[in-house]
Each structure stands twice: as C-alpha cells, then as structure tokens.
C-alpha cells in the first residue's frame, strides 16, 4: 500500500524536477532569443510606453509631455503640442522609429529610473529620486513662433542665439513635419517623410550646408582688420570687371555695377555695398592661409559643440589656393567650395557681437527634478576666440553701416542700432540662396542671428539676401528686443 503511494509521489517529484529544468530552459537558455524576437513587444513597450518628463521652452511652455494612454493604462503617449514648430530640436520618441532630437540626447534624464529592477529599487529605498526629470530649453517659444511665421513655407533656417552666453533662442528649420504623426504613425507615414523630396526630416539649422555668399565677407574683413592688412578706410581699386590671375575667369559686382563712383573705394564702403571686386582683391592680398585660418577659427572644418552633431562647415585647405588665386578670389566672396550651416553663420555674427569670443551654443538650459527643484544648470563656456576686442569693435561699426546705408536696410529697427551682413549666394542651376546674419543692439548685442532662405524662397530668381532674408531677421530681433529679451 505504501509502496505504490511512494512510487506515485516519486513520479510527481520527477515531473516537478523536469518542470524546473524546463522553466530554466526558457528563462535562461532561450531568454535572449525570446527577448529579441520581433514579435515580443515588451522591450519596445518598456522603452517608449513609460512616462517621460516634460520638455519646456525658456518662457515656460510645454513642448513635449506624456499623457496616459486611454487604451492601455500601463502606457503613456508622448504629445507635442506645437507639432511642426519644434520637430527638429525637441524631436520625437517613437515606438517604431526610435528617438530623435532632445528626446534622444536627454533620454536618460527624461525617463524614469524605475526600470532598473534591483538598483532602481535599491536607490528608491535609499530615498533617491528615480522619477522622470524635466528639461527646460533656451528656446523662447514666442520668438520661435515669430521666426517660423516670418520664414513661412519657404525652405530654409533661422538660428538666433544670445551672443553673451551661447543660449540658442530660435532654431527653425523649414519644411518641417508633425512629430505626433511619428509617435502614432505607421511605417508608411515614416517612409513617406523619409522619401519626400522636400526632406522635411532634415534639420536645416545644423545638418545642411549652403554656399554662404557675401556673408562670408565678414570673415574676410575680420582677417584683414585683425592682421592689419587693411582697415575700414584702406582704399582698393574699383574696376568694372576684375580679371583673375592664372585664369580666364572674371569677377563683377552685383548687376555689373561699379563699387560707388570713385576710382578707388574704401573697404568699409565696399563692405556695405558688398562689392565682389574689392573682396576678391582683398582675399588675394591676404593670401590663402589667412582667409582659411580665420574661417577655421570661426568653426569651419571643425566640430561645433552643441546638443546635437553639427555638420561641419567647409572651406578648402590653404594649400589648394597657393597656385590658384582665382579660386581664392571666388572663395573670399563665399562662393565656389565654401559651404556653411546656418548655425555656423550665426556664430560668425555672435563672435563679432561678443567682442571676438564665440560662446559654445547650447539648447538645454536647466534640468528639473519631479518636484520642480533645479537639478542642474548649463554653464556658458567659450568655444573660440576669433579676434581681438578692437577688431570686433571695427567690424560692429562696419556691419551697422550695412544696415543703415548698405544692402541690409531692410533689417532696420526704429530706435535700435542693428548690425548685419547680407548674402546672395549662387546655388548651381537654381535661384540664389538669400542670407542675412546680424545682431542687435550694436552697443551691447543681446541677440545674434542667421537667416538662410534656400533658392530665393517665394521670390525666386530675383531674390537677394537684403530683400528676402533681412526682413525675417528684422522681425525676430525687433520682437525679442521689444519683449525685453
């Protein structure tokens, strides 16, 4: 009687032992395949369904927030109240397509630390705060709005920053997309965005370079003044057409005009009229080394520190100009192989505005814990010393005259001294790119800006930097200074 009972009991124990082996097989041997299986949505859900902290603008508006999913109480859905306006900077946190922008770079701050089973529990028990933190950006929502509306649906970018600190106040890239559509989106919508020839996913403030045109003359002028080769009053010949050495090419001014009426023209006059002949001569006089090294000091051919990777702006190496003065002459006008991002050109304006010191640009201003206490604050730091304070003073005055009496009059703000430089850059077959870089107020600049409107924007073939880009910069700077920024 006891014998058969024991045997049945032993049979059950053997089966229990086999169950332990079996469950070990699934939870250890097969754990990695099961976890990585594409049909197992747990990893994705745990990464994206969790509550994340807020992303706020400098003026306190919510740019990204998590709201509970009504369909699945364990999940949160990420919402972007301003849709297209911050698509490239704030970015998106998507189930299927991963994270981008601040959502990506600040993922660790924004997500809660509760997922780390043992260590998360331990730190929670030890009283550490594992809740999601929030990020406040330096972007000013009211200003971002003005810039986006001024740019409209034209392709291009607006970057504005505080030259004294490097805080980025505006970063608008157009065309844009609605990150909400990616959070909820199906792969077809994402494919459509990726294949759209207008490239709405591209961040034109930092990931696209354009020929900078005459805005590059600012760098050439800095090099001239800094090296003592020329000052504002230095006179240059004023030909109708400049024949380039070692070449059959010639350089003319805009519209084939003379640079003023005199036989000779001062550098300052040539700058405010944006005379190509003068700057071609000046570039050749400076020689390749000086022009290239000045551009590199401003950030060309280098990594610019920022919250995201900035595509380096490029200028050919000095050696290439040694036996090709024609190329140097054209490069000095910001044409040929010079390519710059909007961010790079904003930093050129900022360097002039901030007495020769370029502050490293940044977006993340402060990080808050879940109780709204400040967790950390970004400290401003210098990125580059590009010229002496004296040179900066000279350049500020030269740039102010561009706005008062030159190509940049459309950037004038009543009662405010504005400095700037226009650019109308050849863009291959298409209409030219319209540029404006500038700062205000001249006596103590609080905002530096770069605007680029690709291929002439709505104006097309006849577009100039002064007519198309300068008014956009004017609106942004005027609004910022009027609102006490």
């Amino acid at each position, binding site marked *: *009687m*006891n*014998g*058969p*009972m*024991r045997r*049945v*009991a032993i049979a*059950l*124990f053997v*089966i*229990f*032992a*086999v*169950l*332990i082996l*079996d*469950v*070990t097989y*699934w*939870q*250890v041997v*097969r*754990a*990695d*395949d*099961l*976890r990585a*299986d594409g*049909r*197992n*949505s*747990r*990893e994705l*859900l*745990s990464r994206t369904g969790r*509550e994340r902290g807020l992303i706020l603008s400098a003026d306190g508006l919510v740019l990204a927030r998590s709201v509970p999913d009504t369909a699945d109480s*364990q999940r949160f859905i990420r919402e972007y109240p301003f849709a297209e306006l911050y698509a490239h900077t704030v970015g998106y946190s998507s189930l299927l397509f991963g994270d981008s922008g601040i959502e990506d770079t600040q993922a660790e701050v924004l997500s809660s630390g*509760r*997922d780390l*089973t*043992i260590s*998360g*529990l331990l730190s*929670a028990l030890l009283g550490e705060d594992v*809740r999601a933190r929030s990020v406040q950006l330096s972007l000013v929502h009211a200003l971002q709005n003005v810039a986006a509306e001024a740019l409209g649906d034209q392709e291009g970018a607006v970057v504005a920053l505080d030259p004294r600190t490097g805080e980025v106040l505006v970063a608008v890239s157009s065309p844009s997309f609605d990150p909400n559509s990616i959070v909820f989106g199906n792969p077809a919508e994402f494919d459509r965005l990726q294949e759209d020839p207008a490239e709405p996913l591209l961040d034109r403030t930092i990931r696209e370079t354009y020929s900078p045109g005459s805005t590059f003359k600012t760098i050439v002028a800095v090099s001239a003044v800094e090296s003592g080769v020329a000052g504002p009053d230095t006179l240059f010949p004023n030909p109708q057409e400049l024949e380039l050495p070692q070449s059959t090419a010639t350089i003319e001014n805009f519209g084939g005009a003379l640079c003023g009426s005199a036989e000779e023209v001062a550098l300052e006059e040539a700058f405010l009229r944006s005379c190509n002949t003068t700057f071609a001569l000046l570039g050749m006089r400076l020689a390749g080394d000086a022009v290239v090294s000045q551009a590199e000091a401003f950030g060309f051919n280098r990594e610019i520190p920022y919250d995201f990777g900035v595509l380096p702006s490029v200028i050919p190496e000095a050696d290439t100009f040694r036996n090709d003065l024609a190329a140097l002459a054209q490069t000095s006008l910001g044409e040929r192989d010079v390519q710059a991002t909007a961010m790079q050109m904003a930093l050129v304006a900022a360097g002039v505005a901030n007495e020769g010191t370029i502050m490293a640009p940044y977006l993340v201003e402060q990080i808050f814990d879940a109780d709204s206490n400040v967790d950390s604050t970004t400290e401003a730091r210098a990125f580059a010393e590009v010229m002496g304070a004296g040179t900066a003073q000279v350049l500020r005055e030269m740039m102010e005259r561009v706005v008062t009496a030159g190509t940049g009059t459309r950037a004038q703000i009543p009662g405010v001294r504005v400095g700037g430089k226009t650019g109308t850059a050849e863009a291959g077959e298409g209409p030219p790119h319209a540029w404006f870089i500038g700062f205000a107020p001249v006596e103590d600049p609080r905002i530096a800006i770069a605007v680029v409107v690709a291929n002439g924007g709505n104006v097309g073939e006849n577009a100039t930097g002064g007519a198309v880009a300068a008014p956009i910069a004017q609106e942004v700077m005027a609004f910022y200074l009027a609102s006490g920024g």
Partner: protein
Amino acid sequence: MTRAAEAALLISAAGLAGFGVALVNFAEGGTLDAQTALTFLVFLLAFGGLSAAIRQWASGSVPYLLPLAATLTAVGFVEVYRLDRQLAALQRWWLLLAAGVGVTVLWALRSVGLEPLRRYRYVLLLGAVALLMLPLLPSSGPFPFKGLEVNGSRLWVRWDLGFQIQFQPGEIAKLLLVAFLASYLAERQAALSAWTRRVGGARVPEPRQLVPVALAWVASFAVLVYQRDLGASMLLFAAFIVMLFMATGRKTYLAGGVALFLAGVAGAWTQFAHVQRRVEAWVDPFADFEGAGYQIAQGLFAMGTGSLSGSGLGLGRPDLIPAAATDFVFAAIAEELGLAGSIVIITAFGLLTAVGFGIAVRARDLFRKLLASGLSFVFGFQAILILAGVTRLMPVTGIALPFMSYGGSSLVSNVLLVVLLAMVSHEERT
C-alpha cells in the same frame, strides 16, 4: 516545527502579500495605501483563523500545510492584484469565504472525524455527479442556478443573488470524487487486487471488478465531450487510475489506464477541433502567432523576458498574456519574479504535494491513506497539468493553478483539500 514557527510563517506570508501589494503600488507610481494593510489583514484573518481552527479541532496535524498554502496564495494574489485590481478585491472576499468554509468543515467534523466521508460515500458520489452536471443547466430559465459557457467550455454556474456569483462546481466535485474513491477502493481492495481468473496463461482481474475503471473512463470522457474541459477530464481520469493503482499495487491498471487514455486522446484528436487547435498550438506556437499560438507564445516571451531575476513586480508586461490572472498566472509570475520566483513556486508545489503524501504514508488506515494520497495526487497533478502547459511540456489544458490563479471555487476547493489533509494527519494516532 513548532506551532509558534507555523504562526511566524503565516504572519510572514501575510506580510509577503502586503509587501507585494506595496511594491506593485510603488512600481506604478503610487505610494503606500490602504490596500497594503487590507491585504495583510485579510491574509492574517483567513490563515490565522484556519490555523486556530486546526489547533482547536485537528491539533495533531503536521504544521507544514498552511504555511506553504499561504505562501502560494500570497504570491498568486500579488500577481492578480498587479494585473487586475477588481479581481484582486474579489479574490480577497473569496479567500475569507474559503477560510470560513474550511473552519466550518473542521468544526462540523470536530467529534466525528472523517468517518462520515467513509460511511456516506454514495452521497458523495451523487453530490459529485450533480455538481458536475450543474453547468449543463439552461443558461436562462426559472432555476436560480444557470449554466454558463466561457471560452467554449461549459463548466461555470452563475448564481443570481441580486448580484451574480460565478463558480465552477467541478472544483468541489473533484474532492468529493476522491473521497468516494478512497472509501470505495478501501473496501474493495482485496477483491480488486486478487486476480484469480486465468485467460490463457495470464492472471487477469475479474471483469466485474473493472466496471469502476470503465465508468471512470466514461465519466471523464463525458466531461470532455459535454463540457469541453480538457484539463478537468484528464485530472479526473488520472485520479481514478492512480488511486486504483495505489490501492492495489497492480501496474496493469496503470498500463490499462494509459492505453484507455491514449485511445481517448486519439478519439478526441480526430473528433474535436478545439483539441486539434490546442495540439497544433503546442507543436509550434509561432506558426500561428496571431491566432491559436498567441497565448503560449506570449507566455514564452514573458518567461524569456523575465529571465533570471525578472522585471520586478509591476514592471513587466504580463498583461499582454491572455488569461494571465487565471490559467497563465505562472507565466506572469515568471516574467516579473524571474527564474528565481519560478523555481520557488514549483518547489513549493512539490513540497506541499510531498507533505500530503507523507501524511498518507503515516495515515492509520487504508481509507485515510487513499484519501490523503488521492488528494495529494490531485493537487500535485493539477499544478503539473497547467505548469507543463505554460512551459510547453504538453498542450495547454486550461485548468487553474491551485491557490495562485484567480478564482473562488478553486480557492475554496484547495483550502478544503488542505483541511482534509490536516484531518487525516490529526487522526494518525487516534
């Protein structure tokens, strides 16, 4: 182990339930709330009450039963709480009811002991058959009890009391059938094991004595056919055969039972589409991931993702598994508590089964030995059926995991099972 140690372990189990609830709240962003205290107190009341009743009316019982049962109930409850607050609130009521029923049974049998179970075995049989047929009542009509079909299986009864209570009478019928068999087999043991008839050169049992075996087979098959309940059918049939074997020691009964089982399986396989689907889902759950294989596949994903240490309570996604709070509660626990938790659970089931068989070995007579071993087998085998289904050792049969799955009738029945084992243990030397 002393009674004091038992009390300490029961308090720990109640603490485990309360602590688990607190952890789930924490994981979901909440804080300590009344649920934690309420759960702790309900567990303390239920198992404390049972322990006191056993001390009072079955004082000779081994002290190992309740702490194991309480631990399994606590872990199961926490997972149910984590998956569905409303179910958990109901489950707390069910636990109190189950403990109340357990205490009442102990009180009722305090002086007569288990003798009535032996004496009135045909009442038990009648009761079991009636309970098994209850779900076949029409789903609407004048009766207070109404049959209910859930997921294609008809094993539920709805009782309208102004509010509705649903229960599975088969869970209680299971206990009555084991008690009936223990009594019947204890009396007929001699006749069943004395094989006097010869066919050719081999001794065989009297065909007349095989009638109960055939009846067992028919009854189980009827449950399968009319109620479409694979798990209960296999459990009942295995209980008949194994108890017959334990009573007689004749392996031929086992062999014959296995043969009948295989015949039944083959028949079911050809006749029932739902059996075929279950087997196909078992062979390759990923072949029809969106359909028949989904539950098993999600269970495997849950276990694999949980891995060694688990996601932590409230931090996994066991809500993705269909029937996570009932049949698949083990997969949910494996996901959140990891392999560590899985092994603890399986070991606890093995230990409780072992305690039951230990009581059977020491029981004072054949009826009590068969009762205790039959109950222990039913308990252990039911756990194995669903655990093996979840871990893909065999097709999923759809049956509750004792003490852990959400479900009132299952909880009441398993508490009664433990109470009966305690009674057998108590009567060892009296």
